[in-house]
């Protein structure tokens, strides 16, 4: 197991390096004068040169690359001060260290993800299991029907409706806002509630459908029938035998969803005027703020790799066949 982890982590580091190198050269070889983008109204050649120097764009590309990569490991110095490792450079647009911006945005993204996750896992898996258990009954039909309708909804569609009902027309709730969890847990909860519910609704529907269908599939497995033939209780068979098998496809999808959510829930953030990683990504790409775009990409890549490893670990936990081969 340890060997597996070491192997996967080493692989992840190599992949991160390759992604870093690839994005760097892809972005920086684009024929575009990034200094000019940061140049205000007085875009004199002198100002342009100053900006170029401040951004480190006056150096040859290999030097810039070396500084970028070594900055990630060892940190580097900027006119703004020392940027400690992992240093992803400095934003063209705000002058902020990219890592700082990301870390500043991350609590919101994490809150959004974790809160939404709790809701949609409990509700989605729960109702999916219920539908599978009650397969063919009215309960199943209602749950399945509702999940099909809801999964065709979109956050940008449902969000404004919920806002309209709870905020704009009645004022029952305040407009969603992020509060620091450690400082104001109550406000944090109320502030995130609408985004959670809206986001979770769409995910819940998807997870309901998925857990229902994989569960039904599993219930038809022969070993599940064997367990019943042994006289095990139906609920025991359901949760111990069938459920275990249906976890594998669920964990796979969950891993992908989580890494996507952690690298920024763009639509949710824009629907509720929240500032997380997603907004950072979109803002930076619109303003051609390359260091930020690259930073967010690397950050997202990190989560994809991390979740991949976690999913593989989960596989090994769930299925001994994976563990031992």
């Amino acid at each position, binding site marked *: 197991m340890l060997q597996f982890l070491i192997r996967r982590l080493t692989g992840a580091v190599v992949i991160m390096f390759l992604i870093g190198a690839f994005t760097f050269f892809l972005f920086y070889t684009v024929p575009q004068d990034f200094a000019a983008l940061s140049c205000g109204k007085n875009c004199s050649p002198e100002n342009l040169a100053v900006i170029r*120097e401040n951004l480190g764009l006056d150096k040859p590309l290999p030097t810039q690359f070396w500084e970028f990569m070594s900055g990630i490991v060892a940190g580097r110095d900027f006119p703004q001060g020392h940027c400690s490792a992992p240093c992803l450079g400095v934003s063209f647009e705000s002058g902020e260290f990219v890592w700082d911006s990301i870390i500043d945005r991350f609590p919101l993204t994490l809150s959004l993800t974790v809160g939404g996750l709790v809701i949609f896992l409990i509700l989605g898996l729960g109702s999916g299991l219920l539908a599978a258990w009650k397969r063919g009954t009215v309960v199943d039909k209602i749950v399945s029907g509702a999940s099909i309708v809801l999964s065709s909804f979109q956050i940008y569609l449902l969000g404004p409706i919920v806002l309209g009902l709870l905020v704009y027309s*009645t004022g029952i709730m*305040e407009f969603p806002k992020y509060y620091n969890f450690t400082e104001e847990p109550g406000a944090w909860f109320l502030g995130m509630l609408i985004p959670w519910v809206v986001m979770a609704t769409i995910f819940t529907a998807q997870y309901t459908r998925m857990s229902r269908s994989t569960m039904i599939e599993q219930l038809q497995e022969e070993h599940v029938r064997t367990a019943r033939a042994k006289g095990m209780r139906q609920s025991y068979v359901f949760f111990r035998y069938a459920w275990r098998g249906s976890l594998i496809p669920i964990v796979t999808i969950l891993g992908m969803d989580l890494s996507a959510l952690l690298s920024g829930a763009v639509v949710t953030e824009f629907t509720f005027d929240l500032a997380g990683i997603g907004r950072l990504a979109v803002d930076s790409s619109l303003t051609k703020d390359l260091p930020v775009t690259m930073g967010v990409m690397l950050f997202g890549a990190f989560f994809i790799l991390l979740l991949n490893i976690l999913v593989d670990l989960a596989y090994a936990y769930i299925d001994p066949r994976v563990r031992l081969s």
Partner: protein
Amino acid sequence: MKPIRTRTARAIAVAIVAGSLTLTACSGSDNGGGKESDAKSQKDAAEQQDPVVYGDAAASTGPAKDVAGAKPGGFINVYMQSDLSHMDPGQIYVSDAGQFSNLIHRGLTNYQEDAEGNLTVVGDIATDAGQSSEGGKVWTYKLKDGIKDEDGNPITSADVRHTIERLYSKVIFDGPTFVQSWLSGNDYRKALPDGPYKGKHLPDTVLETPDDKTVIFKFSQPRPDLPQALAMAGYSIVPAKQDTKAKYDKAPAALGPYKIAEYKPGKSMKLVKNDQWDPKTDAVRHQYVDGWNFTNTVSQASQTKRLISDQGEAKNAIQFTDSVDPAQMADVVTNPETKKRTIAGYQPYVWQLTFNLDRIKDKKVRDAITYAIPSQSMVQADGGRYGGEVAGGLLAPTLPGFDPTYDPFGKLKKPNGDIEKAKELLKEAGVKEGTKLTYAYSNTPRGQAQQVILKDALEKLGFDVQSKEIDRASFYEQVGKLNNPYDLYMTGWGQDWPSPSTVITPVYDGELIADGASNYSHVNDKQVNELIQKALKQEPEEAAKTWEQAHHRIVEEINPAAPVYYSKQLQLYGSNIGGARYSTESSYINITDLYLKQP
């Protein structure tokens, strides 16, 4: 100067990508209160036509006149689409940061605005708007007593010197350059390459500080506009002790009534009262509310929705530099309840269809196109009646000397264009059917909508129009290149202070043609250049006539850019906000007078 290439413009785009803003030009049928608002805007603009007055010591003495009914206490919520571009005064050159600057920064001078919107330049930390001598070549400022930074350090003439000198260093690259270049020439950076940071200073022959309270600016030629230039946010004081160079942009020290309590870049900011600010030293600002909560992630559509609904925290909220979402404009102006919570007024921009004079050399062709532009439709694509107004000339209604009747191309009479006249001119010029024209536009919703309108109009004239879309982030960079391959492009320009000098000089002075400069048409007319030089040395009253002469020469004799429309905006605020008014100085809500009706 100001926006157009600001973060604000880009942020609008952000919202659209997110799908939260619909591209719907306000339809021309918006009825109701429109007329009344136009009249009010015209009136406001009329006030702005008077040249600015320079105030004396009495006018510059605090405290500022109370706003009737104002109460202390509470927090105002500020909605913005994106973060401020800069907070270091030296870097501030756009309106969002300028508006913000009035809350925390102070300069040598500032604008005082009376209830009718009349502007007076008064001393801010200086005792008056400035004493000039030697025909305007030398300007002397005395500092008021009791001016301190947020940590209680008294501000001295050394801090003023520091403020000016740091603009020469590489720390600063985004702010205005008027004063530096007036003092040390266009390549002013060479005069003090490291700024004040390595112990070197400007010689006394340029900038003299004989004692702690006195600052003397010495120019090689008369600079009558200095008090207005110094009132720009870009020349606000940066105390020498507080200067952290590049880091200062994120954590500036306050001299004004509020200071930064918490700042989260790209997200939010909290301002609280600065207890070191003494109202008796300030003739302009108030400190009614306890502080300000900025949320810098609220899309234009969401700002409008929240303010229309006027629920909860939105009651205490304002729009800062953003305006009402064009798609919701009709909802706002047709409902009397929301209508009374709006501020309408001109913005300092004139949208113009710039001709690349290196490519369209025949004035008759330029005139023809100018006649043909359906200006009214172009306005509709930018929010309609509350978004703009058909323009007759190239100077905005916010400038002194604005003449609402000036209309050499008959655009006001025929706002949908005069195709007949245009065709006639083209025939005279001998332009063949199918002549190619390349039109460059920014990939914003507005840019795209206007492209359709313009292309259609030009095709009616028989041109073969090639439209080239340019990424919004690099639009001005692309069209700012001297050898750009485009014939036509829409550009907008706004004043730095209420004087045509800050419009005609940067945009139409042939001496200033350069890559990346703002003379987008590359107009270089000897007569215009001479008029500019003459006006720059004149006192405001006299200069106004010279500017008018230059303006007429540009529009009528050269026509480097067809006037299309004057930009306007409509802002909305919450029902608990008191003292809200259109500020002729900022062209936005009057930030320094606001209070909460029920704190």
